[in-house]
């Protein structure tokens, strides 16, 4: 997963993440425990999350 420039830090991704892998303070940051499920990207209102695969 990659966080793009359009991220505003609304943290919607973090609330839908099942593995608590996203920390947000002004911008989202994806931690190692991410399982690449991609649910965060679906709910991102800014289309800021790029799924790696």
């Amino acid at each position, binding site marked *: 997963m990659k966080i793009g420039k359009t991220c505003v*830090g609304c943290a919607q991704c973090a609330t839908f993440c099942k593995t608590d892998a996203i920390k947000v*303070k002004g911008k989202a940051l994806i931690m190692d425990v991410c399982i690449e499920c991609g649910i965060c990207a679906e709910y991102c209102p*800014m289309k800021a999350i790029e799924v790696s695969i």
Partner: protein
Amino acid sequence: MNNVAKPRAIIIGAGLGGLLSAAKLATSGYEVEVFERLPMIGGRFTNIEYKGFALSTGALHMLPHGPTGPLAQMLKSVGADVNIVRSDPMAVIRLPLIDGDNDYTNGYKDIPFRNFSDPLSATNRLKIAVLMLTTRVFPPKKGSLEECFSRYVKDEWLVKLADSFCGWSLSLRGADTSAKEAFSIFSNLYRYSGSGVPIGGCKAVVDALVDVITSNGGTIHTGKDVSEILIENGKAVGILVDGAEHFSDLVISNIGHVETDRLYNNIEPSEEYQQYLEQLKKIKPSAGVKICLAADEPLIGHGGVLLTPYARRVNGINEVTNIDPNLAPPGKHLTVSHQCVQWDKLDELEQEIELGLQDIKEIFAGKKYEVLLIQSHSGEWPVNRSASGLDVNVKNSTPFKNLFIVGDGAKGEGGIEVEGIALGVANVMERIL
């Protein structure tokens, strides 16, 4: 039953403005279809469960004018069943304990909002009372709220209070809030009174509206991104979704003027359209940061707003679990602060958040809490798509017939946040129905 086909309305965006419009139209004989790009309904006005707490996607679980405001009235008029409980006290102002202190490090005292002029000298108290009365009859037409105050009563306290009030309710500084808009808001506070909490939070409002829409034959599609608004001969005739055309008699966009304008193709650049584009250049979204706290003991102890004019960044805080305990796990409280982020500080957002966190430490010194989540809003996912007072010129119309804009990018005058959305929708419905 007659066989006359119902007029069709398409609504872009299932946020509060879109759902209110859909509910109004569905209960007025329209066949309504709502298209939402996200997989969820409610936009920045619904709940998301996080660690057992009902956080919100944007708005605070609070309606600025409570059970008697424009939003509550509109919900009632469409038969949306929401229980809105008035906050009591409605708002409290936190002052430093020791007069002359400029922060809360030596403790604090709280005063009711109606006593806001207490920290002023007797002369300035009188001046402000006269100003509040005269502006009800002769509202100022020009300048910012801060300029207006300083013209009549030069006092540092009023600047702080205006920043705190405007920051909490509009996510703007007093210097960035038009005096005209501010005094419209004050007169609405007299007319409709102060805040309230919908039991069940923002989502209770959204769920009730969805019920009204679907039980009146309306449809709401999620995960459907509208790629174009179809315009023919100066009239909106439908939309394009996933390459398929959907035709309608009416298109209502809940995504703001600026974002809606990107959805037209091959428009004749008429003079009216050029003028409209000029107006759109004045629209700027407002930005803010919300810090969600979890606590075992109440940090505030009531369901009203705690305004914090002496904090560095935090403008105000609420604790809605004092009114609806179910918005947090049993025995816990949900306390949420809001701070306006000035436009020139958006590049230093992390620092702004850090200052907000320090404020909270001082405001709740000696109390135990945990930071649950920090939510920032700006740009195209802002606090308001148009900062209050900047959307008053364009209002809800577009240069195209049968196409209207609702939502927080096209609020009604003097309408704080969601109340402004309801007033904007009411304006549109007056034109259509």
